[in-house]
């Protein structure tokens, strides 16, 4: 941390940024990790208590911990971090070409999803196949994630 003559302090940027909480603004993970762990455990316990009997509860808890850890830690980091303290972060991300690529990718993904959902609904209704809502939603979520990634790469290549 650098102290200036005018009394302000410039916080040295870190790879993962600094926390926006506390006076000393430590590395973001000092606050994000405990918060993420608490969130992971809470969600995993709730997951294991809902819809699982006593015999399966431990297994459900373990699966919950594995599945929730990544998203919960990432969410905690997003909440905690002061983005201006991330090393290499730009001041105006909304004006970058990367932001244009992202907008283009998400916009085109929306069109793709409309087509896929429409065609999928037509195929299912004509063939009489039955797919559970959970399966359909998971497939849709996977499709959206993959489509955005592919569309972003294509937008980047196009410039």
């Amino acid at each position: 941390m650098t102290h200036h003559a005018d009394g302000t302090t410039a916080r040295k940027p870190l790879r993962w940024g600094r926390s926006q909480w506390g006076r000393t603004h430590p590395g973001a993970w000092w606050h994000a990790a405990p918060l993420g762990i608490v969130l992971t455990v809470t969600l995993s316990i709730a997951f294991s208590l809902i819809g699982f009997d006593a015999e399966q509860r431990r297994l459900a808890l373990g699966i919950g911990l594995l599945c929730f850890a990544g998203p919960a830690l990432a969410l905690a980091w997003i909440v905690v971090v002061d983005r201006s303290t991330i090393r290499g972060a730009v001041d105006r991300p909304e004006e970058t070409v990367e932001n244009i690529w992202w907008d283009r990718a998400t916009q085109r993904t929306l069109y793709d999803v409309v087509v896929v959902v429409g065609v999928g609904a037509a195929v299912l209704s004509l063939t009489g196949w039955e797919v559970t809502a959970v399966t359909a939603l998971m497939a849709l979520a996977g499709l959206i994630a993959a489509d955005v990634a592919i569309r972003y790469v294509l937008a980047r290549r196009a410039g």
Partner: protein
Amino acid sequence: MQNSLMVRRQERGWSQQFLAEQLGVSRQTVISIEKGRFDPSLPLAFRLAEVFGCRIEDLFSP
């Protein structure tokens, strides 16, 4: 849209990274503008003009 960004930047001996930091955007953004692949927003165009000490129309031409 054509622009004279690369010429003006090189005249001053600035790197793309330096210019990007002055503008508050990524280096890739500067690269894309110089290649004419990306038209900057109006606020960014104003900052470019300010950094180079000229008018927007001196930097960009349709």
